[in-house]
């Protein structure tokens, strides 16, 4: 199978300035998705965030007034008189606090529901989309890369929705509110703060931008080290057998040193940024205090929205706002950084979503059929044991063709990658009940032929007919339902043995499954398992032997009972006794069906009706065993072991 190089690597791309490349579309699409999933809830949560954070920015207004009151009454010391005034200021503040708390509680609770709901819907959409992708996608993408969409990339989106967007809204609204309050009190002081903040952002931008480079270097180091660890742990026994421990450890130490160095740089940057920003904030605070004090003392005019003259109560409130303002501006820039770094992951999620699903223009369907003694086929609404192709025609008429299992490939050409012909002029005729075997070296195109019959891939030229119908007209699902499949590599699912057999026919009764297992020769060992058919399988049936897993796969195909079977023989060696059982199971399964066998050993081939010898995508010899042996050609050489089969 051709394997393409993955389209992207896990590391973030950097632009010329050493910053991560950024795309707005990914952010827009993420927000679009959340809105699509939660058209009312999401805006509601946003409003709640804006409200609760705006309220938390307001106290400055009240503290200023209270401090002014204190200033007025300190001299007289008449607390009783001041008390009612202060309480009058505090009351609305308390009301606002209560509202803000309520909004915050509601928002965080609903936010939790929304985030997890979003993730659930996102995962499901990804998974649903993935199920509809053509096999080509899975053949050309590394499984590890596909998996990382579900783990790393989805996690990036979670962070975005769960943390970054709320934080941006929160800080953003606080910044805006505080900014206006500042303007309300004093325009000159506000301008001073703005200048200071600009300086602060310049520094953090310089530092933050520079750090991206180190984070990418760290990621690369991590990937290299983890790859090495994976390989060495898998091959640890080989390492022992070859006394290779010291070299292996030495290679590891080198990678480990490098990782440590890169990680240190990245972390050092991240760790110092916080104190730097915070203390610039502190210095700014002092500057405002001193400059503000000087301003106050100098008695300069104080242009402001409120028109108030600058006094100590305003200055104190202003100083508190300085901290709030700088703190939140920092939050904003930090979150923007997080979003930028994370966008690569989001982008990949959308790439998977944008993959084009398998196209299916088929309109011929498979239906239950009643077959009259005279051969006329009529559709039935229940299981009859007979099937027919229901074929609607352009003129509105319907015809029914009995499902027999006659498969013909006529002049078929195919290539996985344009220009690299894999199959040329392939002609295969399989009549119902016939057994057709393909032999040939690795890469000769054996597996490719079966990939075409069930339309995992579409042919480039020529025709494939199934019971006389061009398979392009048949709905893919129905086509595949009519073709049984036992693959080279056995894949079982987590679940019981029974579940795994039933995978072949979801509505099969337990008895049907048992019968299929008996036919496959699997019943014997299954009943001897501790829990029999209810034995739980996990990790691709790792608790079973290779042969046992194959037997279950055969039973799974048997329960589906299709008229046509595709058998791709296992290459891995199993012991002779089990192999004999598997062989018997295969033989039973083949009885009475049209069978395509891809042979890796010649044991299954000899009794075939016709053997196709493939070489570089062409059929170079065809005929039954005896004829081919007599011809003393390639097949003869293969048979006598002169060529490698696998």
């Amino acid at each position, binding site marked *: 199978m051709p394997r393409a190089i993955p389209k992207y690597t896990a590391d973030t791309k950097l632009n010329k300035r050493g910053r991560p490349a950024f795309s707005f579309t990914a952010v827009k699409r993420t927000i679009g998705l959340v809105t699509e999933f939660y058209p009312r809830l999401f805006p509601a949560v946003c409003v709640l965030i804006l409200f609760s954070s705006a309220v938390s920015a307001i106290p400055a207004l009240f503290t200023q007034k*209270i401090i002014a009151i204190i*200033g007025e009454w300190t001299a007289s010391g008449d607390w009783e008189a001041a008390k009612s005034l202060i309480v009058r200021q505090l009351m609305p503040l308390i009301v606002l606090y209560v509202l*803000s708390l309520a909004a915050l509680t509601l928002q965080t609770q609903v936010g939790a529901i929304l985030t997890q709901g979003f993730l659930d819907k996102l995962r499901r959409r990804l*998974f649903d989309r993935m199920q*509809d992708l053509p096999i080509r996608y899975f053949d050309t993408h590394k499984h590890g890369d596909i998996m990382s969409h579900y783990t790393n990339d989805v996690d990036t989106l979670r962070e975005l929705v769960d943390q970054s967007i709320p934080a941006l809204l929160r800080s953003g609204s606080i910044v805006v509110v505080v900014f206006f309050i500042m303007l309300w009190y004093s325009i000159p002081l506000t301008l001073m703060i703005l200048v200071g903040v600009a300086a602060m952002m310049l520094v953090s931008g310089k530092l933050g931008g520079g750090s991206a480079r180190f984070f990418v270097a760290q990621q690369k180091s991590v990937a290299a080290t983890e790859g090495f660890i994976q390989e060495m*742990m898998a091959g640890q026994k080989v390492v022992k057998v070859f*006394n290779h421990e010291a070299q292996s450890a030495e290679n590891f130490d080198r990678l480990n040193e490098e990782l440590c160095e890169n990680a240190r740089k990245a972390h050092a940057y991240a760790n110092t940024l916080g104190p730097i920003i915070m203390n610039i904030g502190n210095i700014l605070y002092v500057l405002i205090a001193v400059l503000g004090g000087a301003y106050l003392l100098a008695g300069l005019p104080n242009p402001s929205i409120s028109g108030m003259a600058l006094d100590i109560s305003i200055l104190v409130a202003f100083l508190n706002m300085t901290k709030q303002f700088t703190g939140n501006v920092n939050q904003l820039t930090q979150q923007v950084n997080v979003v930028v770094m994370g966008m690569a992951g989001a982008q990949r999620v959308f790439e998977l979503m944008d993959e084009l699903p398998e196209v299916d223009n088929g309109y011929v369907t498979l239906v239950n059929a009643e077959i009259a003694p005279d051969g006329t086929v009529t559709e039935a609404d229940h299981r009859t044991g007979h099937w027919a192709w229901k074929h609607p025609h352009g003129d509105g008429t319907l015809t029914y063709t009995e499902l027999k299992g006659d498969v013909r490939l006529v002049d078929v050409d195919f290539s996985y990658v344009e220009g690299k012909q894999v199959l040329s002029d392939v002609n295969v005729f399989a009549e119902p009940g016939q057994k057709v075997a393909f032999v040939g070296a690795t890469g000769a195109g054996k597996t490719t032929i079966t990939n075409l019959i069930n339309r995992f891939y579409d042919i480039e030229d020529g025709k494939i007919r199934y019971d006389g119908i061009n398979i392009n007209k048949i709905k893919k699902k129905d086509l595949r339902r009519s073709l049984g499949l036992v693959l080279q590599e056995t*894949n079982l699912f987590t679940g019981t043995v029974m579940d795994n057999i039933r995978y072949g026919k979801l509505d099969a009764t337990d008895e049907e499954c048992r019968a299929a297992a008996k036919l496959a020769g699997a019943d014997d060992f299954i009943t001897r398992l501790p829990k029999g058919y209810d034995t739980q399988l996990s990790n691709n049936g790792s608790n079973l032997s290779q042969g046992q897993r194959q037997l279950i796969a055969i039973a799974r195909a048997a329960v*589906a009972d299709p008229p046509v079977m595709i058998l791709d023989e296992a290459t891995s060696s199993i012991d002779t006794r089990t192999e004999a059982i598997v062989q018997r199971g295969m033989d039973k399964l083949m009885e009475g069906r049209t069978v395509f066998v891809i042979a890796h050993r010649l044991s299954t081939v000899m009794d075939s009706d016709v053997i196709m010898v493939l070489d570089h995508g062409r059929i170079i010899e065809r005929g039954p065993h005896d004829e081919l042996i007599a011809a003393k050609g390639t097949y003869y050489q293969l048979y006598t072991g002169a060529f490698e*089969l696998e």
Partner: protein
Amino acid sequence: MLKRLAQCVREYKTPALLTLVFIIGEAIIEALIPFTTANLVNEIKAGVEMREVMRLGVILVVMSLLSLTCGGMAGFTSARAATGFAKNVRHDVFHKVQEFSFENIDKFSSSSLVTRMTTDINNVQMAFMMLIRIAIRSPLMLIFSIIMAYIMGGALATSFVVIIPVLVFGLLMIARKAMPAFRAVFKKYDRLNESVEENVRAMRVVKGFAREEYEKGKFSAASDDIRADFTRATRIVALNMPLMQLCIYGNMVFVLLFGSKLVISSHGSIIEVGQISAMLTYGMQILMSLMMLSMIYVMLTMSAESAKRIVEVLDEEPALRNPVSPANAVADGSIDFENVRFKYSAKAERYALDDINLHIRSGMTVGILGGTGVGKSTLVQLIPRLYDATEGTVKVGGRDVRDYDLASLRDAVAMVLQKNELFSSTIAENLRWGNANATDEEVVEACRLAQADDFIRSFPDGYQSKIEQGGTNVSGGQKQRLCIARALLKRPKILILDDSTSAVDTRTDALIRQGFRDYIPETTKLIIAQRVASVEDADLILVMDGGRIVESGTHEQLMAASVIYRETYEQQTKSAANPKGGEE
């Protein structure tokens, strides 16, 4: 457990301790800043002395710069200490695994070792960094802030007496309720990801059986289940924010109300306006520190599990040790098993090998046949001392294998494992695992013998062709032949092939054996095989069943005496491709 990990700090003790010093410095300054700020505000309020304002301003700027320096330095030293610590842990674990015997490797699966060396160590590194940066800083900040608050605010600080316990209790309750919920859901989440992996791997089956809709349904149910659990867990944690905010608001109202009362009724003599806003700042600092502490509590308990898993590896005793005064030279390739019994673990009920008595002369070719799990691989693995016999003695070159230096023994005994691996580098580099100093000629010669030279030369880059991770870019038969060549390069006294030619065609298989006979006649050869043809011409054939040698002899002897052997032979020659069973 923590003690064991602490040993990994080693040369990074200095940066770790320096971090603490800097952090303490930073915390002290940070606690003093609001205090000084309060004075500054009071000075401005007093409104007379600009000089005094400037003086305090300069002090504050200096303090900020000091705090910046301390914080920055702590950032550097902590990064150095934490990544260095992680490096040492990784180093120790990796080196430890190198000491592992097969028994130890079997105990931890390779994937679990990978997780321990990646995810778990990352967790521990983060925890260590947290520990030295925040776990010290937060309590310090807490204490300093409380002290300063009392010094400055006096009675005003009583608000903390109420607020701190409320917050601590609340945070603890949340953490304790949330943690088990998260742990449970993380496990489920792992399983969900495993099921996706399963689906991707089995995509041909899914599509072949047209089960796309069924798979979607299965996934939806699992994903929804996780959503419900996750929502429950996150909703608990989501209470943190409102709780925190409640405390901040409560403190504010209290300070504003009673602060103003204190100022006014004392004519500003007990506290002044500046102190009120300082109290608000201290309040924030105290509550933030508590919040941090609860975060650390959660993080440390979460990473404790990772620490445990790492220490498990570090504390694992290698099952095999070199003898005190080992013998280095292996005299010849003779092998003797004397009353050998073996089981994989002391707890196992059944012996994997029982009653093995076997004497193989140097230079013999021995074939071993038998079904899966009858003990063939186990038997040969005792020879290079990959496992130790539970009872009895295994001798090589007339000496107990336990007397040899392990490396010398394994140099003399080359073994091609059934589950073999090539590594991602060039073919030549892979082959030189057998002998790092082999000349090019020697490499080619070994490959000729293993029938690998031809196909290697057919690759565009020949011996410099890259092998991909897991050896996925060569066929099964090619991989097996490369592995044989690699073993041959050791020029071993004993060569063991554990089902190593199963994917090689019969003719090549025969050529390889012919080469063994012609070129390395003095090497003892043990060949485990499924095909009778692969061992037919051996000097001695062993048939194993149930951990015992049930039949032994030459091909002719066994054909005459053993029913199982004859039946297997006939079945194989009848059905499978075989040079002698064809129609020649």
